[in-house]
C-alpha cells in the first residue's frame, strides 16, 4: 500500500447496513454511510437539527469546552439563511482578481521557501503557514497576523494525544474577543468590523454572534485545509506522473481539485441531533440521539463513483460531498477551491519531484472504524524543475 493512500474503512458497513455506531464520550453517534442517505439526512433539518446545544453536533462533542454558538453552522433555517446572507458575499471575494493575485503570491513564496530547504516537515512548515497566511486574506487583515496563529500550532482545540483541550480553545476565544473589541473601537475593512456592522432581523449583530462566526471561520478551515494540502503533497510525491499531467493539461486542474477533495475528504463527518423518533437507512434512531453525516464514506460510495478508491484526476461526474451538502454546505469552499487551484498550478510549474523521508499518520479513532485522515507529520524534500 502506498504511503499516500487513504483507505476506506467504511466499505463493508456501508454495503451491508448503511450505518455504523460510535461511542463519543457519553453521547453515542449513529454514522450515516451512503451518499443518498447522507444527502437526505443533511437536507431534512427538521428531523436532524443543527440548532442543538452549542458543540453537540460536532464529533467529538465540544459541549464541555464551549458555550458560544458557531454561526451559521449551528443554526437551522430560516435563521440560518438570515445569518448566511450577511456573510455569503464576503466569502466569495476569493474570486476577485486582486484577491487571487495576492493568494498566488503567497503560495508561490511558500513553494519557493520549501524548494530552498533541504528537507521540510510539511504539516508545520508548509501547510500550517500556508493556511494561516491565506486566512489573513479571507479576513482582510495584515499578513503579519499569521505569525500569531502559526504559533498556536496545528490544533487549536487539541493538545498532543488529547481529544479536546479547553485551555487551548480559550486561547482562540480570548483572541477573538480582543480582535472584536479592537474592531468596535476602531472599525476597518476587515471581517470583524463587517460583522459588527451587519444587521440581522433589523438589528445589529451582537458581539457574541460575531464571535460565533469568527470561531467557525478559524476552526472550520484549519485542520481541513491543512489535511488537504498535506495529503496533496504526499499524493504527488508518489505520483509524479500526476504532477506531470497537471503541467501538460492545466485545464483539468479544476476537476483535479474536486477529485482530491473527494478522495481525501478532509472532514470525516459532521453530526446532527435527532428531533423525533425516526430512522436512517431503515435503522431506528431515537429523539435526542445523535447521527453523523459521514462525508468520507459517502465519497467512496461505489454505487455512485466508479473506481471509488482511485484518484481519477479528471473525473467528469463527481457528485462528492467533500464540502458538505445542502444549506449548510461549506462557506469557506470558494476560498479553499481557489487556494487548491493556485497551489496545484504552481506546484506543477515549479516542482520536479517530491520525496517522502519520514511520516506519522493521523488515524482517527471512530470505534468500529479507524480512519486515516492525513498526517501528524511528514518530512519530504522538494526538488525544483
Amino acid at each position, binding site marked *: 500500500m502506498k504511503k499516500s493512500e487513504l483507505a476506506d474503512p467504511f466499505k463493508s458497513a456501508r454495503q451491508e447496513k448503511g450505518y455504523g455506531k460510535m461511542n463519543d464520550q457519553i453521547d453515542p453517534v449513529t454514522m450515516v454511510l451512503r451518499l443518498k442517505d447522507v444527502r*437526505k439526512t443533511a*437536507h431534512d433539518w427538521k428531523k436532524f437539527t443543527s440548532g442543538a446545544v452549542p458543540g453537540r453536533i460536532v464529533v467529538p462533542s465540544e459541549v464541555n469546552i464551549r458555550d458560544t454558538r458557531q454561526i451559521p453552522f449551528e443554526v437551522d433555517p430560516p435563521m440560518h439563511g438570515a445569518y448566511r446572507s450577511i456573510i455569503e458575499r464576503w466569502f466569495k471575494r476569493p474570486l476577485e482578481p486582486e484577491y487571487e493575485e495576492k493568494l498566488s503570491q503567497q503560495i508561490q513564496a511558500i513553494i519557493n521557501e520549501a524548494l530552498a530547504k533541504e528537507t521540510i516537515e510539511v504539516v508545520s512548515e508548509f501547510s500550517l503557514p500556508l493556511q494561516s497566511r491565506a486566512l489573513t486574506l479571507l479576513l482582510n487583515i495584515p499578513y503579519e497576523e499569521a505569525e500569531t496563529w502559526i504559533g498556536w500550532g496545528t490544533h487549536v482545540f487539541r493538545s498532543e494525544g488529547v481529544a479536546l483541550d479547553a485551555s487551548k480553545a480559550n486561547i482562540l476565544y480570548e483572541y477573538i474577543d480582543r480582535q472584536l473589541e479592537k474592531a468596535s473601537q476602531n472599525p476597518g475593512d476587515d471581517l470583524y468590523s463587517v460583522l459588527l456592522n451587519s444587521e440581522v432581523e433589523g438589528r445589529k449583530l451582537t458581539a457574541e454572534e460575531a464571535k460565533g462566526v469568527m470561531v467557525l471561520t478559524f476552526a472550520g478551515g484549519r485542520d481541513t485545509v491543512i489535511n488537504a494540502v498535506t495529503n496533496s503533497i504526499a499524493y504527488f510525491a508518489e505520483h509524479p506522473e500526476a504532477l506531470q499531467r497537471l503541467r501538460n493539461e492545466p485545464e483539468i486542474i479544476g*476537476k483535479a481539485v474536486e477529485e482530491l477533495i473527494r478522495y481525501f475528504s478532509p472532514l470525516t463527518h459532521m453530526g446532527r441531533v435527532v428531533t423525533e423518533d425516526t430512522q436512517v437507512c431503515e435503522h431506528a434512531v431515537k429523539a435526542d440521539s445523535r447521527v453523523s453525516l459521514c462525508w468520507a464514506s459517502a465519497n467512496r460510495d461505489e454505487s455512485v463513483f466508479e473506481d471509488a478508491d482511485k484518484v481519477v484526476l479528471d473525473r467528469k*461526474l463527481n*457528485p*462528492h460531498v467533500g464540502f458538505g451538502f445542502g444549506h449548510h454546505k461549506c462557506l469557506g469552499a470558494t476560498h479553499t477551491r481557489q487556494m487548491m487551484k493556485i497551489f496545484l498550478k504552481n506546484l506543477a510549474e515549479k516542482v520536479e519531484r517530491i520525496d517522502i523521508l519520514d511520516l506519522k499518520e493521523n488515524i482517527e479513532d471512530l470505534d468500529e472504524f479507524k480512519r486515516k485522515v492525513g498526517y501528524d507529520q511528514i518530512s519530504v524534500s522538494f526538488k525544483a524543475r
Partner: protein
Amino acid sequence: MAKITFITSDNETITVEGTSGSVMELAVQHGIHGIDGDCGGVCSCATCHVHVAQEHMHKTGAANEIERDMLELDDDADEYSRLACQLQLDEALDNIVLRVAK
C-alpha cells in the same frame, strides 16, 4: 454556434452566444446572475440549476441520473430542471430559453 437566452430570477432576459464548453461556463463568462458554477462543472454543487422552457425540452433531453439525484432534494426542482454544467453547447441548443432557478 448556439444562441442561449437566460431569464434570471429578477426577470432580466439576456441572450448570449457560444461555440464550445458547457452552458454553465457560458453563463459564468457572461456573469449571468444566479449561475455560480462553484464546482467547475462536475455535478457536485447544483449552483448551475436552470429550468428549460417546456417547448424546448426536446433540445436538451431529460436530466441524467446523477443530475436527478442532485436535484431531487432541491425544493425548486421540477421535470424541466437541468444542471447547466451538464448541457454541452452545440447547434441543437440554438435559440433555447433557460430560466435560472432561485
